[in-house]
């Protein structure tokens, strides 16, 4: 049977429909409710962003006369070895932390979905670390991941595994940070995944069971596709967070009382902060920020394009 598929409206038609919406009272009401956020976005986000774009073409330092330097800041950034180091570190950290975060969160959410009586307690327990300040997490990292006496390595020693020097060995600093930060902050993603798992229609599992599917097959072929929008959301958000990681690493390695940061722990956002607030190179820091923005934008677009193959939205064919 031939199926008639309605052609998707073109951009012009979509724009016309959007403007036509303003004829309705509900549209105005919606914008009225959105206005506090819109005001905040324009004043506190887009305004400073535009200002920083302008500053990125200057040698702005707040306290000295500002000069236009053209593309010099961008040119210098591309030739700055620390930028390359910081970017590489940030990519490696993100590449380890995001999959780890998603896997752990998914695993915990799957377990929680089965827990009946004490579900509320465990949900709270998993979410609690999310409430602790990130600065405290940075200090905890130094204690838990201490190479000689940290809880992690002591536990590994019971398994006859000699743990690495997570906080001092340049080869293990990034995996250690990724492990700590991604697992510690897993609570919010667990809640998102749990909600998504609970939303999967039961009849799909029943149908799979009738076909003799094992638990793993049910998870792989029913749960995962059905919660793929939630997974996609968590991946996108955590990728952006990973590329902007700052506070825990700064506390652990670049604070005044912990001046032990090396090339191995230098993250891109930390380098931007140093250029701006230690060396007063706000123009250069702005250029670095815009480069990071571009990198994040490109990665996000790639993820969105790739998601079309992997993410299933109900009602979509």
């Amino acid at each position, binding site marked *: 049977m031939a199926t008639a598929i309605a052609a998707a409206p073109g951009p012009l038609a979509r724009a016309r429909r959007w403007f036509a919406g303003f004829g309705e009272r509900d549209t105005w009401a919606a914008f009225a409710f959105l206005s506090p956020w819109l005001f905040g976005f324009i004043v506190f986000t887009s305004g400073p962003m535009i200002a920083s774009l302008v500053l990125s073409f200057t040698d702005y330092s707040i*306290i000295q006369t500002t000069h236009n330097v053209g593309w010099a800041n961008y040119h210098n950034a591309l030739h700055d070895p620390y930028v390359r180091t910081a970017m590489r570190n940030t990519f490696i950290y993100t590449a380890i932390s995001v999959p780890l975060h998603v896997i752990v969160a998914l695993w915990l959410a799957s377990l929680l979905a089965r827990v009946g009586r004490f579900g509320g307690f465990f949900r709270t327990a998993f979410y609690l670390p999310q409430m602790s300040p990130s600065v405290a997490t940075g200090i905890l990292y130094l*204690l838990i991941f201490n190479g000689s*006496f940290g809880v992690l390595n002591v536990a590994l020693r019971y398994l006859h595994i000699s743990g690495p020097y997570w*906080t001092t060995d340049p080869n293990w600093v990034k995996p250690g940070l990724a492990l700590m930060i991604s697992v510690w902050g897993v609570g919010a993603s667990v809640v998102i995944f749990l909600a998504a798992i609970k939303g999967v229609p039961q009849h799909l599992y029943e149908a799979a069971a009738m076909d003799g599917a094992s638990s793993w097959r049910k998870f792989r072929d029913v749960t995962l596709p059905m919660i793929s929008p939630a997974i996609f959301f968590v991946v996108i958000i955590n990728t952006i967070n990973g590329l902007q990681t700052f506070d825990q690493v700064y506390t652990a390695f670049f604070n005044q009382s912990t001046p032990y940061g*090396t090339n191995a722990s230098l993250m891109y956002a930390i380098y931007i902060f140093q250029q701006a*607030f230690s*060396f*007063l190179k706000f123009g250069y820091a702005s250029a670095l920020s815009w480069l990071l923005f571009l990198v994040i934008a490109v990665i996000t677009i790639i993820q969105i394009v790739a998601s079309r193959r992997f993410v299933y939205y109900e009602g979509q064919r």
Partner: protein
Amino acid sequence: MQGWRKALVLATMLASIAVLAVTAGLASAHGNKANIGNGTLNIMGFGKGDDVAETRAAIASKVVGGTINRPSGSFNDQTFLAAVASGNPPDLVYLDRQKVGSYAAKGAFMPLTSCIKSQKINMKQYRQAAVNEITYKNQIYGIPEFYDVRTILVDNKVLDQSGVSIGALNPAKPAALLAAAKKMVKFDSNGNVTRIGFDPKMPEFFPLWAKAYGVDILSKDGLHANLNAPGAVKALTYAMSLINAQGGWNKFKSFRDTWDFFGSDNQVQKNQVGAWPMEQWYYNVLASGSPDVHITALQFRNLKNQPINYETGSAWAIPKGAKNPQAACAWAKAMTSVSTWMAAARNRAALRKASKTPYTGISTGNSIADQDIYKQTYTSINPFFDEAVKKVLDVQRFSFGIPASPASAEFQAAWQNAVNRVLAGQQTPKQALDQAQKEATAAIKAATK
């Protein structure tokens, strides 16, 4: 007497002491009262502090008059720059002396020539090394306040247990010091360090080690870095050899991170370290937390066996655009004068006596105040602390600091990163310091354009 009555009597005594101290400080006269233009003196970086800070602040407030606005928290570059950017800089800032040069070179601070003249501030009372730190292009940009000095802190028990003589803990004799460190260090069955013999305190004290090897890492005018001078490379190589002989950086730092540094189970109390160079304020921590430890303070010596001291500390500076520079100047003078320091010292000594905790004195940037504080307020704690306090006072005359530079922050980052790369095994001392020299030179050049 009932408990609450005892508490009441004690509280009354303490309050009386505080009032007396403040009154005594005020009575000793601080020159003319400053004229506060808009009625408020805005200070940044000097939030509510301990008894020493508050006693002096009370005196300075009386001297200056008007409203004193002191938001909480210490100096923060972000907050300061935001205030400057908004066209509303504070009248006075309290910050690390090492930051003064950079801000002065960029024109953020006022030279204090007229302040010193109008308030008749005797700059000779302040320690020269501290004044050098805040002098840029022959102009003074700050008034020195606290003064941190470094001595080698020795745990006598570790020495006795290891059979090491105190004479071996002398950087002037590198081979003997290395041998002593090896004798004092301890490992557990897993190969983890459980006691450090001698901690060179890297990267923080690299300037001290370089100086011991005859190198000033920055020229007096703050415009020429000497980070890869052969002596500096030798100093770093030697400091690394000390760490490597005690298990290497990974084990060394992992163990050091477990210390209860400010607690009563600190590393000296638990004999977890033989000796290490340390700021003088740590004697106060020990006196409060573990007064029974047996310690010795040694002067840090250079290869010629002469005592040297790396000093750092804080200062008061007046930002350009300050609305009340006169009041700010009067405050800085009052806070750092001999009589104010004495009032604070008397108050602290009395408070410590009342609470039956030892008092080790206050180390200030004012050499006259230091002498008076020791003579008039110090009372014996025990032979160990008494000797340490004497040594701290004595070492002050051998001080050097890092001169003010237009690129202080970049310079510090360059040498600190270099030492960290060496510690992490990413570079040799020569490679790291060559790179640091290039970075520091480029930063200074850019800052002086």
